[in-house]
């Protein structure tokens, strides 16, 4: 131990660090999608939103020199894409799942198009807080370099949990999601509630994207997101639309996603690609275990098309 070599302990440490680092985009997308789905609509387009958020954050950070402006730009981009989704879905007889697929393709395409000139330059990145100062071991310090966005996300989960239960807005969103008739009878426009919920969801997903390009991995390229957005949407389903469970599930996912690189760093290279697919396999496995053909899921908003 004295020489700083910690051998196989690198793997659990890297997984812990990964749980903190890699989970942040999952966390933001799933919290955003949680809000949208609670209002009775599903937005599968958050994969596209995530990539657009990553691109615009990187671009704005590069142009202005301020990564926090980049984060804001990513959120606004996400909210605009959310507004587009909600706008099209409010037309009669338009299927929200299909619109989500369309926006997934549109968002990724647009991000690749606009992001072409951003592959070369280096943009200022988000700062990290060093929680590992007490340790002499470099791996521990690396694992505990925590980004502020992660802390915001962790704080957001209980706030949302509380807001859904007690605030007026939380109740309105849940009413729209459980019974649009009831919301209408109370004199509220369901379409407007869902528009706002989808925009907020897009805002958070965009911020999740900014984390990808501005902190970890910390650059913009076309392979930046490979399904984190859609995995996070699936994650909401088995988190039972509960923001606190979204937090735990995101941490588990981050850990799973860090497994491949962690094993590679200690020399286990066979099966690298399979370990990289761990989050998708985990999602599928958890969905198989927790879903049931007999009943709708507990906690599912009744208006949600995807639970039927």
């Amino acid at each position, binding site marked *: 131990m004295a020489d700083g070599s910690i051998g196989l302990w690198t793997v659990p440490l890297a997984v812990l660090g990964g749980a903190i680092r890699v989970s942040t985009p999952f966390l933001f997308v799933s919290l955003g999608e949680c809000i949208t789905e609670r209002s009775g609509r599903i937005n599968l387009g958050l994969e596209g939103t995530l990539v657009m958020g990553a691109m615009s954050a990187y671009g704005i950070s590069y142009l202005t020199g301020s990564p926090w402006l980049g984060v804001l730009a990513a959120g606004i981009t996400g909210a605009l894409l959310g507004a587009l989704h909600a706008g099209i879905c409010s037309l009669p007889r338009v299927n929200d799942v299909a619109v989500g697929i369309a926006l997934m393709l549109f968002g990724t395409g647009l991000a690749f198009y606009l992001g072409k000139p951003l592959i070369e330059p280096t943009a200022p990145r988000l700062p990290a807080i060093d929680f590992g100062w007490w340790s002499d071991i470099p791996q521990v310090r690396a694992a505990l370099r925590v980004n502020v966005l992660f802390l915001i996300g962790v704080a957001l989960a209980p706030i949302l949990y509380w807001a859904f239960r007690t605030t007026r807005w939380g109740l309105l969103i849940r009413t729209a999601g459980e019974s649009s008739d009831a919301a209408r009878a109370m004199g509220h426009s369901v379409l407007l509630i869902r528009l706002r919920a989808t925009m907020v969801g897009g805002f958070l997903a965009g911020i999740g994207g900014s984390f990808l390009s501005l902190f970890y991995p910390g650059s913009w390229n076309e392979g930046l997101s490979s399904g984190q957005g859609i995995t996070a949407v699936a994650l909401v389903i088995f988190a039972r639309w509960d923001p606190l469970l979204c937090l735990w599930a995101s941490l588990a996912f981050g850990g799973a996603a860090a497994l491949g690189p962690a094993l590679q760093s200690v020399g286990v290279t066979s099966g690298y690609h*399979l370990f990289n697919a761990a989050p998708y396999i985990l999602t599928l496995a958890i969905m198989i275990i927790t*879903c049931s053909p007999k009943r709708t899921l507990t906690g599912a908003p009744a208006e949600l098309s*995807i639970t039927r």
Partner: protein
Amino acid sequence: MTAEAADSTEAVGSVAPAADPGFLQRHGGAIEYVLIPGAALAGALGVFGIFVAMFGKNPLDLYFYMYYGAFGTWFSWQNTLTRAAPLILTALCTALPAQLGMVIIGGEGALLIGALSATSAALVLQGMPPLIVQIAMVIAGVIGGGLWVMHSGALRQYRGVNETISSLLLVYIALAVLNHLVEGAMRDPASLNKPSTREIGAANMIGSIPGTDVHWGLVFGLIAAIAAYILIYHTVFGFAARVAGGNIRAAKIVGLNVSKLILTICFLAGGAAGLAGMVEVAAVQGRTNANLAAGYGFTGILVAFLARQNPLAIIPVAILLGGISASGGLLQRRLGLPDASVLVLQGIIFVFVLASDALYGRIRFLKGKS
């Protein structure tokens, strides 16, 4: 039947629609199915023109090069048709389950697994007569792709797992499996920069349709689309599938075996996409590597929605979108647009097509009461 057909063509030919008050009542629905997607497409092209103009390019140049690169010359026609072939097959992967009301978007995964299975079959059967190897590749590709998508159907039916999400997750898993095998057990040691499997051998390639550079995969696609059309609209099985898609409870009450319907349809859907993978290996790449994940599976989703999930309509729509992707290279060279511009245009078309769903039955003059 023939007399009636002749009669109606005569009516179209000799009487102007406006002079025949019954014309729109009889054909308004069919016209709607052409007019609305056509208008959506035109709208999308318009928006894309504005988008490109914002980057200082002339939209008229854009339209010209798009037309020229897609349908302007015999060379570009062949390029277009070569790209249309896998699109027809991957579109079927979305369109067939759609008859049952399922949204499957995993065509890309089935294509990759189909390609991998077909390549394995060819490598195992090295030295056999080419025809046998090719038939084995088709069978392996169809079974590989079919079983891959059947998972999504089975999970939906037996576990209640949403098929849209599971099929997309399976795309990423398929890509990981492909990369794992191509860089590991199936790697050709000679492929240094781009890990690939060994080649299936020149003799086993399926070659081109005589007189063209378009490979036989196009014929596979046409046959599959026509067969799918007959299956869905002219067989008892297809009728049962459409009943189950319309009302699942009614289907159960009349005693239809819904599980069997779902599994069979998903198998056929995945089989079509798996065949696309086999075609890409046996007619284009000659081996399996990461190049196969070229996005045909995702464009196929758009083709299916634009064709309103009708297997016959998929053929012209696939040619149209094949043309758009064929013109991408020319747009890059002549206008300096990034290669992602094709993706942007596809996304805009998709959004317009879905939004245009709201228009059906709402265009007053098509109802024949002006």
